[in-house]
């Protein structure tokens, strides 16, 4: 019988493996749930996973691979870089792609096949700038990113948002992801006497940066972007985690919606743990939205599905109401700032 | 000659991969003798010596020393049994000093016997002069002396010498041969491989002539020196 082929492109191994596995797991879980109810318009869902290892090249290869397998939509990837590397291939093949990648550039190319299921960097940047300048009134801000599209996008957007808000960015530095040793650059930063450090990269580096910042005696507040919202951040930073700030949309456990509670429960029963982060859930929402559109259209046509999504009223999602703008961006945003406590738990420090 | 040989080889065969280098040789050496093995290039002399030291493993046959079987033992056990080997091409430890080389020669003994060291220095006064010099910077002849001296450090009962005159100036060849005699007079049995047949036969009591892995002739030095065959092939009328 004919099936509805859905691809997963995610970093199933590599540095972001637990995020990637989260995405893969939730797609499989959704597929199972839908198949149990008789599938999508009578078609069973068949899932094809491709591991992009968080690298752009592998992502490009995955894209070709998945297209060759004849999928009609792809969920993922986790990083903007990987999502971007695969975009054009999906676009050429008319395959829908929904990713939590937050780099603004993802929606700037005019590929109708791309649907962002998270909120773009620029939204986060505005929030961060407002929080740092408006609320905290920092005078000497350092911004650090790595080389990924996501991090550079977020960092650049933040720098310009801070400047627009009248703040003073004394340094904007880039670090190499996974390089572990950040002391040389932190030592240089120390000599500039900052009062806040904003880090736009991923948690694997963020935790170590924070630990080394404290070890070097740099007494600045550490504010980390959304990709640091992972339990490993605090574990990596060790006792230095306390007092670090993380900016993100609400954590899975905080989600007030019924859909969310149901989904989290089945996820936990099936996999014995909670999803690693909200990004997993955003991707699940992306998949739910596309299938919803197909069902409403009574057609598997991808183009029609997108047209429907861009026009539809917000539908209830795991991560809140879902709706899409004409450029494929998800509408809305709900950022907040968490402060890490001594026991590694979060305290909400500021809400939008 | 006593009836029980100190050292005995029986039907030894050795090969490199599929190439047979030694094709069944037997020989014996009695205590106190100097025995020489002669032969053209590639006859298998070095192969034979290396097999005695177990650096190479025999395909078949037996090698017995003081009634103990050597084949199958690991190479580093041989010197402990009383057989010392001064290899072809000297093989001194170039970045170690002369004295360090000599001390390593006594590695198999629990402790270094100062008397042996003095004896070696007596045999080769040049080595004493150069004690602290890196052995790699010695001239070829000095290195050869060092190699022999190093082999003596383990107080061997039998000494294997592989071409001690190779590439050595005539004057040093004479000096070295003289010391080999002195070593033998000290009660050490010597098995000597030489290219320089005339000199070797003058020194040795008996000899074996090896030809492509087989023993062609053997006998006392006098017999060999006067043998037609040996004359022709090795001592030969030149030109």
């Amino acid at each position, binding site marked *: 019988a004919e099936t509805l082929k859905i691809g997963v492109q995610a970093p199933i191994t590599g540095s972001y493996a637990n995020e990637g596995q989260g995405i893969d797991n939730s797609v499989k879980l959704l597929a199972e749930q839908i198949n149990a109810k008789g599938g999508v318009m009578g078609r069973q869902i068949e899932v094809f996973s491709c*591991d992009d290892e968080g690298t*752009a*090249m592998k992502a490009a290869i995955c894209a*070709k691979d998945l297209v*060759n397998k004849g999928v009609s939509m792809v969920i993922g990837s986790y990083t903007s*870089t990987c999502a971007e*590397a695969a*975009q054009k*291939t999906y676009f050429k093949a008319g395959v829908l792609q929904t990713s939590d990648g937050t780099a603004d550039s993802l929606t700037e190319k005019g590929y109708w096949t791309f649907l962002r299921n998270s909120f773009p960097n620029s939204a986060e940047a505005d929030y961060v700038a407002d929080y740092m300048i408006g609320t905290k009134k920092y005078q000497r801000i350092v911004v650090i990113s790595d080389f990924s*599209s996501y991090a550079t996008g977020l960092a650049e957007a933040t720098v310009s948002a801070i400047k627009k808000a009248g703040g003073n960015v004394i340094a904007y530095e880039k670090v190499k992801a996974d390089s572990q040793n950040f002391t040389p650059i932190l030592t240089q930063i120390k000599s500039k006497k900052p009062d806040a450090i904003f880090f736009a990269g991923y948690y694997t580096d963020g935790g170590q940066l924070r630990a080394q910042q404290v070890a070097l005696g740099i007494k600045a507040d550490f504010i980390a972007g959304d990709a640091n919202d992972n339990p490993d951040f605090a574990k990596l930073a060790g006792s230095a985690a306390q007092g670090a700030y993380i900016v993100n949309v609400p954590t899975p456990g905080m989600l007030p919606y019924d859909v969310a509670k149901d989904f989290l429960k089945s996820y936990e029963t099936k996999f014995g743990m909670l999803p690693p982060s909200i990004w997993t859930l955003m991707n699940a929402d992306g998949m739910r939205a596309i299938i919803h559109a197909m069902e409403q259209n009574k057609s598997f046509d991808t183009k029609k599905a997108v047209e429907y999504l861009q026009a539809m009223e917000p539908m209830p999602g795991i991560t809140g109401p879902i709706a899409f703008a004409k450029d494929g961006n998800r509408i809305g945003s709900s950022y907040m700032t968490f402060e890490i406590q001594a026991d590694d738990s979060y305290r909400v420090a500021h809400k939008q | 000659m006593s009836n029980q040989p100190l050292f005995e080889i029986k039907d030894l065969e050795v090969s490199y991969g599929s190439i047979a280098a030694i094709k069944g040789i037997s020989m014996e050496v009695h205590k106190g003798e100097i025995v020489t093995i002669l032969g053209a290039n590639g006859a298998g002399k070095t192969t034979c010596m290396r097999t005695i030291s177990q650096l190479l493993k025999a395909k078949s046959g037996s090698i017995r020393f003081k009634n103990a079987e050597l084949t199958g033992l690991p190479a580093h056990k041989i010197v402990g049994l009383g057989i010392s080997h001064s290899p072809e091409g000297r093989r001194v430890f170039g970045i170690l000093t002369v004295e360090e080389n000599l001390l390593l020669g006594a590695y198999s003994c629990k402790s270094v016997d100062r008397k042996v060291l003095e004896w070696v220095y007596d045999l080769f006064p040049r080595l004493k002069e150069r004690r602290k010099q890196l052995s790699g910077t010695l001239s070829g002849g000095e290195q050869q002396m060092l190699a022999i001296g190093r082999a003596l450090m383990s107080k061997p009962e039998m000494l294997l010498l592989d071409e001690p005159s190779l590439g050595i100036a005539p004057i040093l060849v004479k000096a070295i041969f003289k010391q080999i005699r002195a070593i033998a007079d000290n009660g050490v049995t010597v098995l000597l491989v030489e290219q320089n047949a005339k000199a070797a036969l003058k020194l040795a009591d008996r000899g074996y002539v090896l030809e492509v892995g087989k023993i062609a002739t053997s006998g006392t030095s006098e017999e060999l020196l006067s043998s037609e065959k040996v004359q022709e092939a090795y001592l030969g009328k030149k030109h």
Partner: protein
Amino acid sequence: MKNLNVFGYPLFIVFMAALPLGLDARWQEVAISFLVFSVVALSQDIVLGKCGIFNMGQALFFGMGAYCTAILNNEYGWSLLSTIPVAILIPALFGILLAGPIMHLRGDYLLVTTIGFNIVFVQAVQNNLGGVTGGPNGIFGLDSLSLFGHEFTDQVAVYYFAFAVMLLTLWIMRNLEHSKAGRALHYLRLDPLAAESIGINTRLYKIFAFGLGAGIAGLAGTVFVAQFTAVSPEGFGFMQSVLFFSIVIVGGSSVPGIFLGVFVMFVLPEVFSPLATWRYFIFGFAMIAAMILRPRGIWPAKFGNIPKFLIKESNHGG
């Protein structure tokens, strides 16, 4: 040896020429990868296998070729095929320039310098050198293969492009074996001092090998771009170089050995892709086992490449 020339190669070529007809899209893609990586491995063989230069940075030239093509296409709109001369010349030139000052280094020291070059290259590309390399993400969404304005969307076209490049490489390898230059490489690998002492300018020929290897790898880079219409730094990292290095040694630095090596290293993993996580683990064992069982490689290169009239009936060995 004779059988290989009379039957082996023609059969292989005919088989490869007909191959895409029997494959679905996914396996066609694997087949293209096989060809591209074979060409790079052959280019590595010129440097490592023939000339004996311990080069662990061949991916650099592969990448440089790919980037030349990608940048010219992306920034200046050149068609992929028209970038070929640049994609050969720039890596070859770099190969020559880089080789110059380091060719006097011995084995392992050369190994690190070539690794170093590779790392410098990857970092330069990641840092978006000159603003054209696309940084760590690379360059995506390049044009497909086109000829005289006609665009080939089918990847079978890419396959035949790769196939042609492989044939060209094989032809050059063959010419090399039957020339003074090719022999010189063997001589200087086996004993540089002896080679120098019979009149071989070892430096010149080492640089020649390096440049030639770099040029061919660069050409393979163009094919790579045609296949993926994308480039990114990690495709040309040090790990890739290690793979090419291993292929040449595991293969035994002979042409059939290298094809086998590429097949084992790049195609088999696709066959066993369900075992993905176990793949490299098993692979490592396979590499060790291959070397232990066949220390000179699976299919060791043979010498004795001499004209018939020299071969006498009573010849020994050979």
